[in-house]
């Protein structure tokens, strides 16, 4: 039975989630050097184009068509049979295609998150092929396991409200793998690049925070109390994490920074994502306050020590924050918030924590192996990295024959 309020909210949420990808483009774009600004915007926008088409033709079927557990198969290829009647196993009160397009926006932003790891040094052609293969062989299967009808992690009882494992740990671990295999940017030791435009980072953060209400509250797939809960805890966790990052910097470096608050807010949004439909507001504050501690340690202490060049901290924020969020769901989940969920460790059900841990480890294992294989295949056929001269001149000029800013008019 279609509910008009639910349908309106899910359509609105889909638009909000779409806006997160341009938001991410500015968030990441502000962090790179001027000569690579357009390459980041271009990679994010071309993902919107390519994966939107991929999703309706192939991706949705692979992710969500009912199956034996591993892959959705080809039954819903080209949206055959995906119409305007509800598909009750996913959402009983909205047209099936509304659910499909909402999920499509998640399939768009997830590979865009990985861009942060190989920013400023990947060939555009290689990037396109890598992204298409990654969507098909990493995102779609994992999405099916966690959310698809018959998916084995879902059957096991893993809780992931809006994409902690499917989106953030998944993209974050793929980021670490690609950062490791593509190698560090040239001249990093002599010339640690400062973000070229901090206001863009803040603009991007604002758009992400705004869009995230669609991401999390929309994942209720209805305009109801659960959506309100997700909305409230999302805002709370983002706020707590932004504040906490600023305080950490204040104590650790002497001054709080704008970049720090923006990073903290995004980390908080990441961490609350899997938990948004299962935890109440006080756990959301704890999740937010602590995620900045973990992510700060990852990006400011561990990364420099180990020396990998995850240029824009896709791993340090999304994977680390996502793992914390997924595990915190196993700690703080409560049936009082969502009867369809489960109780966590602090509500007398330690088994849920274990299930969450398994889901995290499975995601890390599966994604890192398949991402590595995809990277190597692309590298063998066309080469992934630009040559030294192109890297030095910047990807804007060498990959797109454009530049973002003029010096002389």
């Amino acid at each position, binding site marked *: 039975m279609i509910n008009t309020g639910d349908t309106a909210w899910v359509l609105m949420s889909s638009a909000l989630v779409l806006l997160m990808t341009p938001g991410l483009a500015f968030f990441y774009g502000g962090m790179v050097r001027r000569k690579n600004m357009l390459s980041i915007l271009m990679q994010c926008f071309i993902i919107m184009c390519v994966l939107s088409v991929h999703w309706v033709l192939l991706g949705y079927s692979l992710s969500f068509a009912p199956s034996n557990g591993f892959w959705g198969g080809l039954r819903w290829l080209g949206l055959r049979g995906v119409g305007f009647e509800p598909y009750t196993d996913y959402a009983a009160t909205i047209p099936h295609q509304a659910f499909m397009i909402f999920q499509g926006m998640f399939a768009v932003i997830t590979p865009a998150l990985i861009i942060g790891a190989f920013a400023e040094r990947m060939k555009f052609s290689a990037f396109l092929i890598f992204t298409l293969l990654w969507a098909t062989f990493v995102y779609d299967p994992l999405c099916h396991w966690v959310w698809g009808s018959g998916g084995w992690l879902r059957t096991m009882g893993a809780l992931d409200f809006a994409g902690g494992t499917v989106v953030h740990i998944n993209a974050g671990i793929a980021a670490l793998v690609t950062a490791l295999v593509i190698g560090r940017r040239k001249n990093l030791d002599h010339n640690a690049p400062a973000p070229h435009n901090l206001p863009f980072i803040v603009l991007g953060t604002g758009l992400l925070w705004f869009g995230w209400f669609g991401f999390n509250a929309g994942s209720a797939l209805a305009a109801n109390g659960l959506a309100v809960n997700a909305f409230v805890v999302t805002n709370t966790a983002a706020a707590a994490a932004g504040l906490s990052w600023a305080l950490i910097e204040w104590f650790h470096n002497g001054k709080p920074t704008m970049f720090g608050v923006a990073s903290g807010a995004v980390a908080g949004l990441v961490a609350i994502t899997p938990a948004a439909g299962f935890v109440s507001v006080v756990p959301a504050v704890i999740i937010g306050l602590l995620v900045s501690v973990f992510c700060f340690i990852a990006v400011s202490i561990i990364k420099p020590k180990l020396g990998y060049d995850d240029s824009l901290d896709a791993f340090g924020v999304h994977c680390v924050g996502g793992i914390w969020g997924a595990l915190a769901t196993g700690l703080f989940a409560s049936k009082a918030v969502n009867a369809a969920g489960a109780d966590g460790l602090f509500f007398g059900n330690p088994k849920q924590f274990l299930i969450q841990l398994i889901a995290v480890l499975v995601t890390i294992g599966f994604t890192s192996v398949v991402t590595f294989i995809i990277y190597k295949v692309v590298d063998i056929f066309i080469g992934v990295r630009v040559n030294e001269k192109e890297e030095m001149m910047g990807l804007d000029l060498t990959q797109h024959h454009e530049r973002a800013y003029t010096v*002389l008019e």
Partner: protein
Amino acid sequence: MRLIIAIIQPYKLEEVKEELYKVDVNLITVSEVLGHGRQKGVAEVYRGAKETGNLLRKVRLEIAVNEDFAEKTIKAIIKGAKTGSTGDGKIFVLDLKECVRIRTEERGSQAIG
């Protein structure tokens, strides 16, 4: 006194600065400039319209030194900026007539260091 002007690759600035500090040259002025050498820059395309001969971004250093420091300074810039490929840049050395430190009104060699 000499005025040394060097045009270098932007990404080489930090290395050149490090080399200059090593030979105790600490006073430099840096500006961002556009230019191209024999290669005539790069082609750019905007909505299908191709523009050729575009200028590339470079960094320009200005360093005023006493005679005995000139050769060290030049060598330091070369050490920091040279890659051996086209686009490494140029160094120009000019005679410098006068130098005044505004704060103390000192002049000449005294004012440079």
